């Protein structure tokens, strides 16, 4: 289908809506959900790429064993039930019967073991951390998976959402170079929707996977992700109903209020509980002057983060005090506070010997602007002004999505902005940024800044294997105090993204994973 045929098909689909028959009660089959994807993801296989657009789209195609509610409690995904041995070492999952991949082949426990232990440990940085704790994974029968851990790992049951442990087909990937497999373009998973076509620069068309294992699901016939690079066009598309759902950064923060007033649309900040997006100014700790703790502390002082929340995010954000989001359970607010103070920043810079030259200039630092939309651009401009006040020239450098991932992953940067998910537990979403065992070149969202502190490593490791919640809290409090003192990255804000959708669609936000969820249960009333 080329673009013109696509447009015609869309017009035809639009014309057909008034005549389609809808059932009066319950979940009805049928309907098309038009939504947005931006920027265009580099590929759709979530096992190989975990940038936000890839996850949003790939979440429909690839499923995992569990889902998580808004309270982050596990719910059945492809596993209908699970058991944990009393010693916390053995996890047994029972799969639903009759799960099939999009190519028609059955999905069995073999695929789960292969995906988790072979593929993800090579290609998925946070899954690698999780499954490195597994001593053995077995498939005693096609519907049973048994993970035996080397030692207890408190949040192990939190490792099986569709973004952390997507299941890929063994019959396609076994014995191949995973990332270069030609079938990556086909994106074959088990999710309720399968890829029909991807017209680069235009749209990604997903259609119903008829062999889906849950009765009647998915309810929708198709989901069309339109690639709309321009934020004004995205807002307009949502306003006039061309698209019925916007998530993450699709709608700029200054537009959110406007949509709250529009009657047919629902605006919610729910559906991000699992992620608790945490944002920071990332500094390459390997390079002077960022290799000096005092410089990084100065950065914390020189950014007026309240103003950043107000001016760039229009109130859809809260100032972050440290590495752990206040929205998760091991958060400790009793840490060193960095108030906005140019004088304190200057004093720290003077102390470390980074004195201004005759022109008042202390240093020049390159800042790569992440290509995720306008708020990132504005934030970059905000940072540049903040640094200018203490005599540091921040030179903004633009790049595309692949370029940003390549540069940050390979430590080829000085400063940038980064945003990571907290994933419900510090052992899953927080430690990965700070422990030295996760300094892995070429891997995005690992310890890319290169921070290394044996004490921090020890505390994170111990907290991860401790099952007692009170003890864990104590360990995480300690680690938060050390990190806030060392400032490996300059935490800025906890972002509160909106999900905005047409009220005709139900179950859009049904779990704590929000718009990354599979959407099998979404229906149009």
């Amino acid at each position, binding site marked *: 289908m080329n673009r013109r045929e696509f447009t015609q098909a869309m017009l035809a689909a639009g014309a057909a809506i008034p005549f389609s028959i809808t059932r009066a009660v319950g979940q009805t089959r049928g309907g098309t959900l038009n939504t947005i994807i931006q920027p265009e993801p580099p590929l759709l296989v979530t096992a190989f790429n975990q940038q936000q657009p890839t996850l949003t789209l790939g979440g429909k195609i690839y499923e995992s064993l569990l889902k998580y509610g808004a309270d982050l409690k596990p719910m059945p995904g492809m596993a209908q039930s699970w058991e944990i041995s009393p010693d916390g070492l053995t996890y047994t999952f029972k799969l639903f019967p009759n799960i099939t991949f999009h190519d028609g082949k059955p999905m069995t426990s073999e695929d789960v073991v292969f995906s988790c232990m072979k593929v993800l440990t090579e290609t998925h940085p946070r899954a690698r951390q999780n499954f490195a704790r597994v001593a053995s994974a077995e498939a005693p029968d096609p519907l049973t998976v048994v993970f035996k851990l080397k030692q207890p790992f408190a949040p192990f049951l939190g490792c099986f959402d569709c973004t952390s442990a997507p299941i890929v087909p063994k019959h396609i990937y076994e014995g191949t170079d995973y990332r270069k497999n030609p079938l990556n373009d086909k994106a074959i998973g088990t999710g309720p929707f399968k890829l029909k076509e991807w017209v680069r620069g235009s749209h990604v068309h997903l259609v119903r996977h008829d062999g889906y294992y849950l009765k009647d699901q998915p309810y929708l016939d198709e989901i069309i992700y339109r690639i709309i690079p*321009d*934020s*004004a066009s995205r*807002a307009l598309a949502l306003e006039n109903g061309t698209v019925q759902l916007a998530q993450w950064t699709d709608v*700029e923060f*200054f537009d959110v209020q*406007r949509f709250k007033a529009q009657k047919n649309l629902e605006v919610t900040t729910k559906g991000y509980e699992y992620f608790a997006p945490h944002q920071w100014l990332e500094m390459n700790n390997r390079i002077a002057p960022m290799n000096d703790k005092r410089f990084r502390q100065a950065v914390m002082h020189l950014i007026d983060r309240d*103003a950043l929340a*107000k*001016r*760039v995010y*229009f109130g859809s954000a809260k100032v972050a005090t440290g590495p752990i989001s206040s929205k998760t359970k091991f958060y400790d607010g009793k840490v060193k506070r960095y108030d906005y103070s140019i004088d304190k920043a200057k004093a720290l810079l003077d102390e470390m010997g980074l004195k201004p030259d005759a022109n008042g200039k202390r240093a020049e630092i390159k800042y790569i*602007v992440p290509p995720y939309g*306008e708020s990132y*651009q*504005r934030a*970059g*401009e*905000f940072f*540049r*002004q903040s640094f*200018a006040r203490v005599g540091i020239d921040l*030179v*903004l*450098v*633009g790049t595309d999505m692949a370029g940003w991932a390549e540069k940050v992953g390979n430590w080829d940067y000085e400063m940038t902005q980064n945003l990571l998910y907290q994933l419900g537990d510090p052992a899953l979403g927080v430690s990965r940024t700070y422990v030295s065992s996760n300094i892995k070149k070429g891997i995005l969202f690992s310890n890319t800044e290169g921070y290394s502190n044996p004490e921090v490593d020890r505390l994170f490791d111990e907290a991860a294997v401790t099952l007692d919640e009170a003890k864990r809290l104590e360990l995480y409090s300690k680690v938060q105090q050390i990190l806030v003192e060392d400032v490996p990255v300059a935490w800025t804000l906890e972002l509160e993204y909106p999900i905005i959708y047409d009220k005709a669609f139900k179950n859009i936000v049904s779990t704590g994973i929000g718009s990354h969820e599979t959407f099998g249960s979404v229906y149009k009333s």
Partner: protein
Amino acid sequence: MDATRAFLRHPSGMVGLVVLLVVVVIALIAPIVFPVSPWEMVSAPFTPPGEDGLLLGGDTLGRDVAAGVAYGARVSLVIGIASAMAAMVIGVTIGAISGYFGGKVDLVLMRMTELFQTIPAFVLAILLVATFNPSLLTIILTIGAVSWPPLARLTRAEFLRLRNREFVEAALCQGEGTLRIVLGHILPNAISPILVVTSLTVATAILLESALSFMGLGDPNLMSWGFMIGAGRTVIRNAWWMSVFPGLAILITVLAINLFGEGLSDVLNPRVSRRRS
């Protein structure tokens, strides 16, 4: 000096010149009138024009639009003039060689020029800027590299016209060197149409730079008019002033340069002038 006097009597040319001088003055005094950087957030976001001491309002971050417009004049003029100069150097060199030597040299150079003329200038500019990281220098060179073909063709035509004139043959008979003949005899006689076209190239260069910045391909460290429109465009429904004022600045400046250039053309090339024929 006849030309100067004639220009002073040229109404639209003078209007262009005066407006252009005003823009130049604004560019020069921008740091005095607005001592604070145009990137500085001086007010609440979305401040409407006239409020909070901001004549033209504030943008999404609360930056002064008036300061942006004034500093943008510096960027636009520098890039416009520098890239027109770059285009002139490339175009005149190629045109002069082509027209003076003729034959195979001419054939090769003109085919190459046509090749450049067939590629849409803006597309080529996007490609070049995206390939090399956008910075002041790369943008100037890029605009120069896509704007030279008309100048090359014009110079070639002038050289073809002049190279068989008696004064050139006389110089040849006296045994003067090629370089001296080209620079000392032919070029001075061909310079007036070249100057006219170069002045008009300044206008297109400003438009090109604005378009590149609008698309986010400008130097992100320069406050330029195109950048301001690009940044304000998404909120144009809530805040028209962020894109309208820089837009007007582009309109007025480009119009002034065009009026000036046409005036220059009328005065320097009276034979081909529409007005006097």
